[in-house]
């Protein structure tokens, strides 16, 4: 391989980027905007106020429970309504939107062993339109029920081994991997397609350049930008810069400050390998496209399945059996597993899962590079 020719290709990519402000923005601003929005929404969004109805169908026997619950819930900042008499009325109120959640206290099927209370049946009814809000409210209700009806059963509390159970903090590493892979894939796919359509590839192939030099040149060129991108995203996600109030401007915290349990450097290497896979996948798939629009048509084929199957939302082990082997073929699966290991669990290079993720990712990157260089000379009819 000739270094001068390879670097000439990388340099050219850098020179083209320098003039292409939109692509620069897509590469560097877009991921930060995406992460910032998600961070904001996932952390701070939640039910702002909750109107809860406590429906006591037990009469005076249920009063101690409903009163205990009411005081616990009011203490938690909810507006408690006690004037709804039965379940049907509560359901209607939920439909009308006057309440957000109803707790119905009713008699259970059999009599309780306890003398003081009948066998209590507690039903929580939510509208079911926004599962995230519902989950938050049910969580709060369970907490209140545990304290107010404590005598009915043991207190249940939840703790986590890794992180603090914050959804966003556990979700972020996966998201970083996904956003980087997606953006790098789109950019390389389109820029290599232009090379094919614009006749410059034809011209490249009429010089003594090797196909591998083109592929490596592209990987280095886009890899460099991916490197800067990953560094920026990592800084933004893991760090916080506090800027005090200046004049009329309020104080702001820049950066999400997601706690990182492990080495950011290792996470950086994993993301970079993922980006190099994306570069070569882009080159490879550009063979099968004739227009930029056709590159975008690969998104539902190549990107969306990786988003669904690679463990961003659901762990790969929990997928239906048929889908698991497919997930294990995807570079994103290893990237996301590696990022979670490192950032959430705090694993280092000595942990075999991290070693495996790194090896497989490097392998996939090499395989895709080989495929990309094999398809470059495909004859255009």
């Amino acid at each position, binding site marked *: 391989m000739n270094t001068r020719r390879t670097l000439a290709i990388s340099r050219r990519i850098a020179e083209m980027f320098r003039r292409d402000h939109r692509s620069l923005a897509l590469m560097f601003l877009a991921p930060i905007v995406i992460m910032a929005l998600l961070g904001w929404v996932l952390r701070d969004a939640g039910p702002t106020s909750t109107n809860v109805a406590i429906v006591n169908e037990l009469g005076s026997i249920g009063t101690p429970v409903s009163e205990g619950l009411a005081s616990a819930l009011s203490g938690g900042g909810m507006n408690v309504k006690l004037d709804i008499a039965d379940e049907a009325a509560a359901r209607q109120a939920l439909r009308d939107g006057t309440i957000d959640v109803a707790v119905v206290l009713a008699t259970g099927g059999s009599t309780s062993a306890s003398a003081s209370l009948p066998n209590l049946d507690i039903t929580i009814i939510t509208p079911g339109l926004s599962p995230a809000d519902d989950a938050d409210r049910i969580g709060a209700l369970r907490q209140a029920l545990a304290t107010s009806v404590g005598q009915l059963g043991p207190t249940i509390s939840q703790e986590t081994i890794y992180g603090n159970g914050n959804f966003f903090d556990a979700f972020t590493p996966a998201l970083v991997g996904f956003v980087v892979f997606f953006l790098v894939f789109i950019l390389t796919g389109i820029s290599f397609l232009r090379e094919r359509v614009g*006749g410059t590839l*034809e011209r490249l192939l009429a010089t003594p350049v090797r196909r591998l030099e083109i592929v490596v040149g592209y990987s280095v060129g886009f890899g460099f930008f991916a490197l800067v991108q990953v560094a920026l995203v990592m800084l933004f996600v893991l760090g916080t810069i506090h800027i005090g109030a200046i004049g009329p401007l309020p104080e702001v915290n820049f950066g999400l400050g997601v706690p990182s349990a492990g080495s950011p450097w290792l996470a950086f290497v994993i993301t970079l390998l993922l980006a190099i896979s994306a570069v070569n996948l882009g080159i490879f798939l550009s063979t099968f496209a004739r227009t930029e629009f056709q590159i975008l048509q690969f998104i539902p084929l190549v990107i969306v399945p990786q988003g669904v199957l690679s463990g961003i939302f659901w762990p790969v082990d929990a997928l239906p059996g048929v889908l698991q082997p497919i997930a294990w073929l995807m570079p994103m699966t290893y990237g996301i597993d590696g990022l979670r290991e490192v950032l959430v669990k705090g694993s280092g290079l000595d942990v075999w899962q991290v070693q495996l993720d790194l090896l497989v990712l490097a392998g996939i990157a090499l395989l895709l590079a080989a495929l990309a260089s094999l398809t470059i000379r495909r004859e255009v*009819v």
Partner: protein
Amino acid sequence: MSTSPTVEDAISARGLTKRFGSIVAVNDLDLDLAPGRIYGLLGPNGSGKTTLIRCLIGLARPTAGESRVLGVRMPDRVNLGRVGYMTQSDGIYNELSVWENLRFFAALAGQLDRAVLDEILELVQLSDRRGTPVLELSGGMRRRLSLACALVHRPSVLFLDEPTVGVDPELRVEFWTYFRRLASEGRTLVVSSHVMDEAHRCDELLLIFHGKLLARGSPSEILHQTGTDDIEQAFLKLGGSGRGE
């Protein structure tokens, strides 16, 4: 017309054939082209000129037969360092400046001498446009830059695919002046065109129709042979259509 290939031939082909499915783009062609001459590859659109050039360079794999450039059987990666190819589309990077394009193709072709690049830029009269992005150039300037990029490594053999398409008459005359100068330095030029009035500027014409070599000879020989007074007429007489299909 058909002798065995020797090192003296700049370009030679034996039984060169290229099929795309049922279409025969190059049909069993034999060629021997001598160095230091300008060959005009003439034929209507779709007659197989570009495919013939691609087969001669080795960019397209021939279905049958072989081609040699400077005695080396193509495709040969290293030998491409002695070949220049100006594609029909400009084949330059719109986002890059004139100089960046030139330097890029020079690096790939192994030309490291900046003075040569300056000289070529002077030749195509783009010295004052060095830093201009290609997007801001006129069509004629882009053609000139495209030609310059094919010349960076001072190739011995040049394939120019429709170099004067979209070029105004004044620039066309300039181009042919460059071509003549390059030939006088001992380089071999194969210039494809469907503009028949450029034919008289070539040393020798290769009339191509449906991938077949209809006739070969100097412009005057062809006119004499067919008893016509322009190449278009000669084409029709020889059985080729003067128009695109």
